[in-house]
């Protein structure tokens, strides 16, 4: 039983990683007042660029840089539309998701000609798992050994990075000047403007951070979690991250918990496949898969708590007084 739990938590960490990165990405964007349903597209774009880069240059790190570059570029398109041209945030997000869905397949066909995939990655072209010191030695210590050696040890660098991003984000958002301005611009951009700060500049910087984090999430998918890019491999993770962001009420630690919950549900779903539960029978996998979305809907409807987002979210900033 305990071993099963460790295995499931281990799976939870792996599945949660892209969610955490993408949800934190969304946190920077949405706290600055920019709705970002383009998380999905940025993850997919980065996954492709990272895998393609890693395949061509044989280095996961170069792939990662290219993934981040692709994702940040997409974030800048979003910014150009929403910040500079007062465009609708949702429409822009849909546009980016659609463009990326088409472009990744088109480009991978052109470059690799493998039906929309990139070549399989191996060796340095992938982020490999890191084994903690003494992990082997501690393996057999009861409880602690399993937690240390099997749960905490043995993930790739991006997993640890994702978890480290949570306290870092907390610190940035609540303890720094950038964070103060970021929060202010999502609540009342007029106040920020009259305080002599450029609303656009803060929002662009928030989107750059958002792009970087989505870039990490995408690279994780194609060069760490998997060994290459597959068509539509983001498979709704961006939307689920968005749900986690709302579920965590736009705050770093609750967002982390929401991501872990959703990741855990995914691990459960995999585990439960075909398993008979005494007295209940077989629980359909789909029923568990669908829980994150159902929970988010219930939360938004106020049936389980209340999610109040940043006040100025989604509204373009126009320099006019009402």
């Amino acid at each position: 039983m305990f071993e099963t739990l460790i295995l499931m938590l281990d799976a939870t960490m792996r599945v949660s990683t892209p969610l955490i990165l993408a949800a934190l990405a969304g946190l920077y964007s949405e706290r600055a007042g920019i709705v970002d349903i383009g998380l999905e597209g940025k993850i997919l774009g980065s996954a492709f660029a990272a895998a393609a880069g890693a395949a061509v240059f044989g280095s996961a790190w170069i792939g990662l840089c290219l993934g981040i570059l692709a994702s940040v570029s997409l974030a800048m398109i979003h910014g150009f539309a929403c910040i500079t041209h007062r465009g609708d945030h949702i429409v822009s997000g849909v546009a980016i998701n659609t463009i990326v869905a088409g472009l990744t397949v088109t480009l991978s066909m052109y470059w690799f000609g493998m039906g929309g995939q990139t070549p399989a990655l191996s060796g340095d072209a992938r982020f490999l798992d890191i084994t903690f010191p003494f992990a082997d030695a501690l393996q057999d210590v009861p409880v602690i050994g399993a937690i240390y050696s099997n749960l905490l040890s043995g993930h790739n660098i991006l997993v640890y990075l994702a978890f480290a991003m949570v306290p870092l984000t907390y610190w940035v958002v609540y303890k720094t000047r950038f964070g103060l301005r970021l929060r202010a611009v999502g609540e009342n951009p007029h106040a920020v403007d009259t305080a002599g700060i450029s609303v656009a500049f803060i929002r662009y910087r928030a989107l750059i951070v958002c792009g970087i984090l989505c870039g990490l999430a995408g690279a994780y998918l194609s060069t760490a979690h998997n060994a290459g890019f597959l068509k539509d491999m983001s498979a709704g993770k961006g939307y689920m991250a968005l749900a986690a962001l709302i579920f965590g009420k736009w705050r770093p630690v609750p967002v982390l918990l929401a991501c872990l919950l959703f990741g855990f549900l995914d691990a459960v779903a995999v585990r439960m496949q075909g398993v008979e539960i005494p007295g209940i029978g077989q629980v359909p996998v789909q029923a568990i898969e669908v829980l994150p979305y159902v929970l988010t809907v219930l939360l938004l409807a106020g049936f389980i708590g209340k999610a109040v987002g940043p006040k100025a979210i989604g509204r373009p900033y126009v320099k006019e007084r009402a």
Partner: protein
Amino acid sequence: MPYAIELRDISKRFGAVQANKDICLQVPAGTIHGIIGENGAGKSTLMSIIYGFYEADTGHIEVDGKRVEIRNSQDAITAGIGMVHQHFMLVDTFSVLENVILGAEGGALLKGGVAAARVELQRLANEYSLDIDVDAIVEELPVGLQQRVEILKALYRGARILILDEPTGVLTPQEADHLFRILKALKDQGVTILLITHKLREIMASTDNVSVMRQGEMVAHRETAHTSKEELAELMVGKKVRLTVDKDDAKPQDVLLSAQNLSQFDSQGVKRLKNVSLTLRAGEILGIAGVSGNGQSELLNVLSGITPMDEGEIHFAGQVINAKSPRDAAQMRDLKMAHVPEDRHKMGLVTGFEAYEAAVLGYHNSLAYNGKILMNRKAMLDECNERMAAWDVRPPNPHLKTANFSGGNQQKIVIAREVEQNPEVLLIGQPTRGVDIGAIENIHEQIVKLRDAGKGILLVSVELDEIMALSDRIVVMFDGAVVGELDAKDADERTLGLMMANAHNKEQEGEEQEGVSA
């Protein structure tokens, strides 16, 4: 000695509108300088130029005798200019401290700046008697204190020139008095103050000099000591002001509408309307006086059925309306209650609609405009044409988008729509807000005409002049409650002013603390 701030030939054009034209202004240091003008005279545009919100097309600004380039708010702040906006520029969910340091954090990390700000705020608070709890969340503070945060923000940035844009619009007279005491203290410390207002009383009471704007131009500069309300009023409007409306005495008849103990809570559970009772008779104009935001809007919304009441009841057209048996806005219209809302852009019109469509808003279900399934566009157009002619709406084009009419003509479209339905009761809010002077007279005449036809009119206005000129009876509201009622003949500005501050039968002391907060 150079002027604290001097404007030279400032002009600004928005599309076809010349908002400011060749504005010159000289403000000596350490004085309070009033800028007065009607709505739309260009005052706010001018101040926005000084504060770097807009850039002037031509002309330049000098501060302490040196020419400064102000392209954005940061430039203005650097030049020592601070501004208290009409709608406060505060982040509601932040603490006072966070609001004050925003944009002047003193480093990439908040820690050091916050500590320094605490000390500095304490000093400012002592020096100018601007006491405030720096850790309070702004949205939980009463309006008067929120304004204080705005002033502190400016002072914290070292402002030597402070612009206040209509600062008393949301304040009670007592809070306003306190504000002016603060401004005097600031002036004694050498701060130069620019006070934008359209209230003559404030200009006369607190300024050293006054400049008058009209239609985008600076038309006069006066020393306050050497001018009078009457002269300023004339300069503002450009012709002899007409503060009275020709009307006979009212002949009130039966009670048309009576409201008993109406109360209403907002979404946060705050009681916005407190046990309001009033009656309205046929053939009278009942004026509701009060400082903006003291429950008048809520009263209009509850009476017209837009928001349901939480307590109390309304007797109207033989029906009893209460929380258990509410009527919505459509049902109230069916009972022949018409409503000209306070804000025609937000509520009274759909500015994206063509005029003939906006002219049936609220009556769109009426048989006159509908066939069995489809709407009768021809009937709508014909009627719109007739009304545009009758009410002299210009241009008389029913297909023009509502947004493209001037304020006065938009208001005529709304009033015509409501009055032509031949209602028993007309609720009318701020009938002449943003309406040019010629149209004001016309609108006032129409209101009186409707009264003389034996209808009941409930008039809400924040313009005391308008209330006194039109009403037969006046009810005063304060903090959501009715605090007094008097015959229009007995009303004067002083009495009403005291009532509006709820100070007519209480000690002045202690009021300040309570204010409108509650």
